[in-house]
């Protein structure tokens, strides 16, 4: 029995034969996550500003966007982009963007970016809201411009509050990226499924899980380190960062509803 267990955990043959495949998959996973997280981050600030705008022309669409992308499973969004694009191919061809949606890689980037932008946007919005209004008022009293208030007063404090939930969001999108495998992308999960189909050897899922765990753990440590570095000035005088996270922010890192491998 113990021998079976050892054979399951240390399956060197399997690693020897298919280890390269997992590493190739890891590269695709890293590319998808890196590109969509960065693009999502770039979209998040304008989105947060639109959400907080007094003009309903901006705030209403932004609210609808955020509600849709946070309120539906990412799997469903990915299917909508991938197979939905296939359905309306003539239209996409006529406007010259079919080459983009033809490719599973771009479809994943597109769906993941839109999804993470919604989450990151809410994180940024919550973080900005956490900066006391009196500080803005004081900065205005000093005659600072809107840009300088944002750049020197609000954002430095807001980003510190946003850092932790943004890290959680990154970890969450890494795990969610496994969905890419169901639209034929050979990411880490895709390669794992491929190897399993070949070998029927469950150990491969264990190795894939360990790789995901190693990445998320590394990111979590990197984030601790960054947070310590950036919040040195707060350690003695202020309460810990967690204490100033508003209820809004806690909502931003909820799970993404990976519903197995269900299909349309």
């Amino acid at each position, binding site marked *: 029995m113990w021998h079976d267990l050892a054979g399951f955990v240390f399956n060197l043959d399997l690693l020897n034969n298919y280890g390269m495949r997992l590493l190739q998959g890891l590269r695709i996973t890293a590319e998808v996550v890196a590109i969509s997280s960065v693009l999502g981050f770039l979209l998040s600030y304008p989105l947060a500003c639109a959400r907080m705008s007094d003009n309903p022309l901006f705030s209403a669409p932004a609210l609808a966007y955020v509600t849709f992308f946070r309120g539906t499973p990412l799997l469903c969004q990915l299917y909508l982009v991938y197979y939905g694009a*296939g359905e309306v191919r003539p239209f996409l061809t006529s406007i010259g963007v*079919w080459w983009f949606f*033809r490719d*599973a890689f771009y479809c994943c980037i597109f769906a993941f970016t839109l999804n993470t932008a919604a989450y990151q946007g809410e994180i940024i919005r919550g973080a900005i809201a956490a900066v006391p209004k009196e500080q803005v008022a004081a900065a205005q009293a000093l005659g600072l411009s809107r840009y300088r208030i944002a750049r020197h007063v609000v954002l430095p404090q807001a980003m510190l509050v946003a850092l932790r939930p943004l890290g959680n969001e990154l970890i969450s999108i890494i795990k969610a990226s496994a969905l890419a495998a169901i639209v*034929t992308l050979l990411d880490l999960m895709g390669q794992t*499924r491929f190897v399993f*189909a070949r070998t029927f050897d469950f150990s491969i899922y264990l190795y894939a899980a360990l790789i995901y765990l190693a990445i998320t753990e590394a990111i979590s440590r990197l984030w601790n380190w960054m947070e310590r570095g950036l919040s040195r000035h707060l350690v003695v005088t202020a309460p810990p960062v967690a204490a100033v996270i508003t209820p809004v922010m806690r909502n931003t890192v909820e799970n993404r509803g990976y519903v197995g*491998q269900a*299909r349309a």
Partner: protein
Amino acid sequence: MKSAKFLAFVGLAACLASATASAKEWKTVRFGTDATYAPFESVNPKGDIVGFEVDYGNALCARMKVTCVWQNQDWDGVVPALLSSKFDVIFSSMNITAERAKRILFSDMYYATAPIFATQAAIKSDDVTPAALAGKAIGAQSSTVFANYIDQRYKASEIKLYPGGDEPFIDLASGRLDYVIGDILVAQKFIEKNPGCCRIVTELKRTPDTFGPGVGAAFRPEDTDLKDMFNKAIAELDADGTYKKIEAQYFKTDIRGK
């Protein structure tokens, strides 16, 4: 103390004995199928699993005097689900191959249809050699004999594997794929529903080292009794014409194979 231990041991042994005894008498047989494979098995708008294999499986159950229960299961997971007793038989157009037979037990073959290449209607060439398809995107359902076939032979093509049986055809219709390899009847069913999208290029020969002799029901290696029950029922439904009757409801051609 000693007697208490002994009693516990007897109790345990009795439990084990009754567990194995009840496993021998099949009252209910749980069927696992990946219902993305019309006309063999698919989910209808009401949410029921329907198709040729469902009707045929139910007829086998009636003959074996057992109750059938159908479960929908992702194709990638059918073998693990069978081995971990989530159900008792895979009844899902599984081709009998030597590779699979190392891990699971197959009944006699109950249908054999031709594997085919399908392509977009606009592609006129009938050449499907690996050289002709170099650089082209070929799709198949993953973990199938079709996926293995292209994976081993079409090294220069871009191979895309899908979890479901209908998904490669959907992507062929949308133009993401140049070719799909799959079952002829599944392809015909899809083309019938999506006229003009695509066409069947050529039928491929079944050989023992590619697609195997045909489709069988699959069991856990220890369930030889269940396999024997199925084989007997399969032979009986052939003999009394039930197979022909069910087949005629779904297909114009004979799929029984030899």
